[in-house]
């Protein structure tokens, strides 16, 4: 079972004041900390679990700059066999469609039975790369998957629908699957583990090598402008020390009739 997993490095935005860049096309990222996209963390774990059970290889791929290798090293430390980074220069000139073209160009020449992506990325939340790749590569697919079981030449998936409903399907291999959080419990990665994994293969490719030109990667979607959320009335903020706040809360709870 050979599995390719597409991953992305995303900024952590909790407790930060995001600042919009001068062109109003994105946010300033130089002060932000980055991590492996949560969904991709589950995707790489699922690939490694399948490899541990059934044998085969796991390859992690990202499109990005040198800093993005950090997430590939993490994937290698978790148990991926090799990693590929596509150096594509200034990433802001691509939309999801461009990323799909690049990833597909890499994947098509690799041996694989399964291709995984996360359902979506935490930063721009488009949630389209996986299924676009399935169509681009003409692969069978299943999306938003919370359980996978291999059967002979097939894979049985549970897709998460709304309201806690699951949809079980059988998909013929090879297939592309988008992985939803909660499918497994991603393993812990130590600094030592990451250091050890430095010996594993991390290949860098560029667009020329892949035979894709900027013309083919022209974006279809154009970000006109990004902006901070419009003001809303918002919550009434309770202030003071914890004691005062707790007192005010008890008063509110009493008024709302839930303190009996």
């Amino acid at each position: 079972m050979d599995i390719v997993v597409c991953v992305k490095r995303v900024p952590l935005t909790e407790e930060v004041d995001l600042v919009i860049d001068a062109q109003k096309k994105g946010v300033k990222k130089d002060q932000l900390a980055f991590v492996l996209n949560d969904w991709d963390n589950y995707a790489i774990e699922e690939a490694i679990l399948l490899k541990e059970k059934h044998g085969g290889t796991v390859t992690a791929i990202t499109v990005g700059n040198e800093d993005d290798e950090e997430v590939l090293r993490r994937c290698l430390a978790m148990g991926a066999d090799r990693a590929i980074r596509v150096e594509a220069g200034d990433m802001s000139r691509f939309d999801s469609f461009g990323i799909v073209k690049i990833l597909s160009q890499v994947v098509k020449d690799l041996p694989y039975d399964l291709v995984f992506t996360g359902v979506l990325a935490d930063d721009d939340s488009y949630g389209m790369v996986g299924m676009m790749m399935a169509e681009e590569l003409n692969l069978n697919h299943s999306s938003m998957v919370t359980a996978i079981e291999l059967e002979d030449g097939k894979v049985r998936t549970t897709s998460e629908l709304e309201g806690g409903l699951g949809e079980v399907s059988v998909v013929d291999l090879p297939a592309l699957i988008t992985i939803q959080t909660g499918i497994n419990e991603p393993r812990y990665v130590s600094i030592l583990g990451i250091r050890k994994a430095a010996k594993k293969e991390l290949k860098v490719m560029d667009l020329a090598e892949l035979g894709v030109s900027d013309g083919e990667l022209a974006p279809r979607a154009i970000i006109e402008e990004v902006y901070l959320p419009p003001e809303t009335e918002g919550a009434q903020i309770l202030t003071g020390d914890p004691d005062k706040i707790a007192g005010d809360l008890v008063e509110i709870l009493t008024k709302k009739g839930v303190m009996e």
Partner: protein
Amino acid sequence: MSDIFVIVEHRLGEIRDITFEMLWKAGELAENLSHSVSAVLLGHEVSSIAEDLSDRADQIIIYDDERLKNFSADLYKEIIAGLIEETKPPLILIGSTSWGMELAPCLSIKTGLPLATDCIDILSENGRFIAQRQMYNGKIFANVSFAETSGCLFTIRSGVFPKDKIGDRQAQKIQKGFPLIDIKPGKTFVEFVETAAGDVDITQAELLVSVGRGIGEEENIALIKELAEALNGVVSCSRPIVDKNWLPKYLQVGTSGKSVTPKVYIAIGISGAFQHMAGTNGAGTIIAVNKDPKAPIFRTAHYGIVDDLFKIVPVLKDKVLEAKKG
């Protein structure tokens, strides 16, 4: 007159709310742009569904076939791509739902039409459509437009538009034959499975004390349980808590969990992602405890406490016990 297409989402014989919401928006746009609204309905034995949509669209384009009994992104994609090719609609709306998230990107590649996902509004400017959407968990908004194309695909977030009827419409029903496409879907439906029910039903609770990823460690959940107990309330949670197996799935609030209707919903260490908040629309009063003043939850909560939950929760528990004694 060109058509705005709405792809009808239905499950187990019922039209899903997202369909009515998209038809509302399509109707609004159509009025301003003198377009018409076409509902595109794929399924098997769907005449009653078509009937229920008949005053919401100008046309209902129906593909009724045994092979469409279950949703299939593969078959939907082929049929809708053919219809787009034939009629060149300027705008196609699909739900940003599990099914829509599988269908729309495939359809975009298949047809070459651009796609904007999870849109919270559609603006129309000089004959172009602009998608309004969110990034970074709702901390940033973005307007997205497209390069010159004959049409575009938008997936629409659930709950952002009213479910109401808009305008006076009487749909003409157009029955289409199953186009003879010799494709065998790569994916076969087996069955639906429900989340196992638990010993408590959060949809019935009057007071929910809901915990999110901000709780940090599994053992800290005890703090939340103690507060809930003091308040005689019920514990619920956001998705990451279930993903980590710290609490069972039946306690999860949100689009992939339960919709709840308590008098009071106390959200502790929850950022307020729309998938979570969608489950709290029926809550009377929402109180949020979060140490990030920019957390999106403060936009929808009624009361907010910007502080470390570990400072607030124990003190609150004591105050509640005190008040109940006195």
